[in-house]
């Protein structure tokens, strides 16, 4: 599992590739939060994430809470259909804005 971080203006784009599960999710969360300042605008690009376990879903929600608690925002990009379905039925989807591309996500964050 790999985390790559870029900036587009004041938006932080975090590209995650690989599975997010009990072993990789804590690492990913640490890296995302390390660069999250107060009122951060964060894009999580999950296009290259083929699978998220329960731990992965929890990592997403936990990250969302920590970012939004300081006035920040998170948008998800490229969530695979099957993962989206799973998030929907397990109650994790409703918290998030989802887009297909990074550009759409950046627009959504600024709007």
């Amino acid at each position, binding site marked *: 599992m790999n985390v790559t971080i870029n900036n587009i203006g004041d938006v932080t784009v975090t590209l995650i590739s690989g599975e997010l599960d009990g072993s990789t999710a804590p690492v990913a969360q640490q890296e995302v939060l390390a660069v999250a300042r107060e009122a951060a605008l964060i894009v999580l690009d999950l296009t290259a994430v083929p699978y998220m376990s*329960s731990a992965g879903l929890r990592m997403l929600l936990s990250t969302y809470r920590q970012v939004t608690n300081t006035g920040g925002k998170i948008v998800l990009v490229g969530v695979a259909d099957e993962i989206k379905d*799973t998030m929907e*039925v397990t109650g994790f989807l409703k918290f998030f804005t989802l887009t297909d591309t990074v550009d759409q996500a950046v627009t959504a964050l600024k709007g």
Partner: protein
Amino acid sequence: MSLTVDRIDIQPTHNYGGFRLRPGRPFPFGATLVPGGVNFSVFSSHAVSCTLVLFDKHAPQPMAEIPFPDEFRIGNVFTMVVFDLDYENIEYGFRMDGPFDPRVGHRFDKTKVLLDPYAKSIGGRDVWGQAPNWDDVYWHRARLVPDDFDWEGDRPLEIPIQDAVIYEMHVRGFTQHPSSGVKYRGTYAGVAAKIPYLKSLGVNVVELMPIFEFDEFENSRIHPDTGEQLLNYWGYSTVGFFAPKAAYAASGKFGMQVDELKTLVKSLHANGIEVILDVVFNHTAEGNEMGPTISFRGIDNRTYYMLTPDGYYFNFSGTGNTLNCNNPIVRNMVLDCLRYWAAEYHIDGFRFDLAAILGRDPWGAPLANPPLLETLAFDPILAKCKLIAEAWDAGGLYQVGSFPAYGRWAEWNGKFRDGIRRFLKGDSGMVGDVSQRIQGSPDLYSGGNRDATASINFITAHDGFTLADMVSYNDKHNEANGEGNRDGSNDNDSWNCGWEGPTDDPEINALRKRQMKNALAMLLVSQGIPMIVMGDEVARTQHGNNNAYCHDTDLSWFDWSLVDQNPDLLGFVSRCIAFRKAHPALRNTTHFRNTDYVGSGYPDISWHGVQAWNADWSAESRFIAFLLCGKHARGGTTPDNYIYVALNMHWDAQTVEIPRLPEGMAWHVFANTGAASPEDAWEPGQEPRLEDQRHIFVGPRSVVIFVGR
């Protein structure tokens, strides 16, 4: 986040075969994620040793076996923490060693891998109907799940029981039919998708048929004539009491059924609907000595099961074994289980299958003061949960009206079902009985700290005919079950309205529809708590099968095309439910006193015949009417309108004299089952004023309901 000092008890202290261990903690029982590892805890009064067996998920053979060190044991509890486990990808079980001496009740077998009774998630039947590997050494496999969940402030709704309208539902059957149109058919998520339907119907409690993990392949067989694969579809046979059925979850294949069910509960609550679970503590899926050893038999047979003096299984459940519920250890497990579902899943109540068994001692004798029932009645975590008993068992112990209630337990009132059904089909001698049932059965539930809230009124349940079949069949037709039509009740008190089964005759079909409306109207104006079965509101049929426990087909599934076919019936039921909710006089907690204690000039309830104030209680009478004085609603504490209900189960119409209302008030028609839809029931509050305030022509086999304001 602020920094804290680490706990001083989370470092490994021992090593076994490459696994780091340390002494565990007995609480909580089962498997719990702790810092760095997993705490395992399992108890047995008679085992001499226990080994933890670990599998990689789905693997055919264990990848490790770690004996519980004896120096870690606390009392009869085997406990340890194991570090460095990939908790998302393993399955665990136990081997218990002890005596094999069936005559004394011991059936230990260390060749078997046993399921943790406290398993919170169970694999092995992840997808409904997927053929199991019968050679698997470990069929039902305990898994580890995170127990955190974001409830966003949700808590059990605590709807007062007298305000409940209960909808009994089979999770899979509710949306499995292709006509349901939901994305995740046959699942918890599928139920959530139908919340708008439930809200518009107006029910505020769903009672889910068993959702504890069970084996749909238990007793599976091919019907010799039809070739249908018969399954354990209803699920009254528990494999694990702390785990939700994985195959009822759309996310079951990912092992996420815990989150999915909690999300369903949260959604139902957000829409004002409570959740009651149908729980089966009277027996387990292990059957008798010929059945599979899954868990309890190998962990502590003598403790968990009621055994005869020479070690055979008592069979008060009719299924092979009987759980030993008043043994103190088992009693604690039952308590732990219910507390777990109430606290962790925010469940609002429980309906106990064959609950008379819960009042038997370890040798089967009925107890006057069953410790288990008392414990549950007074437990603080369960204090606001609804407790409903199916107050009989398969061993002849019938306790409707006499179930040890401790002022808390409600009962499935089988006498309501019997009385209303007989009255409905026109039996003689029924008006007296019906007058008791309508009042919340004071003959059964007054005194002893009980009142009308003890009576769960129902005319149909999963056992027996659907409402549509109750008016279409005189006899059961269960040949599709492959038991020669011997199974299922013979006492159906049903009447086919003139023809057995489907017919084109419009008069018979019209009568059947009217009879269904009559039944539902009577149910919804009775004191006590009404329960209907999923699909009754749209005339769901099982083609005369009154015991469809083994059919995972459209015989038992909710066919949603019926919603379009029977909008009139659906509309009638919805309006009756709305009427009930609009009138507190229909939802008292206490029984009527049959007197005027507020000085209105009317008793709280009065009985009438075709002549006002003159009820006919004779054996051949098939007409009875009652008048509720609005000023006596809720014991005089909540003003309501006056309500008059006339029940004519005679085959002839009657011209009925309506009792007079106080000056300045007038009767309005809420419902008349003899009228054509949509004039069979009106929106509460918009009922039309009766032109003739003194007399009403009530059609044959019809119910009229008036509201006086």
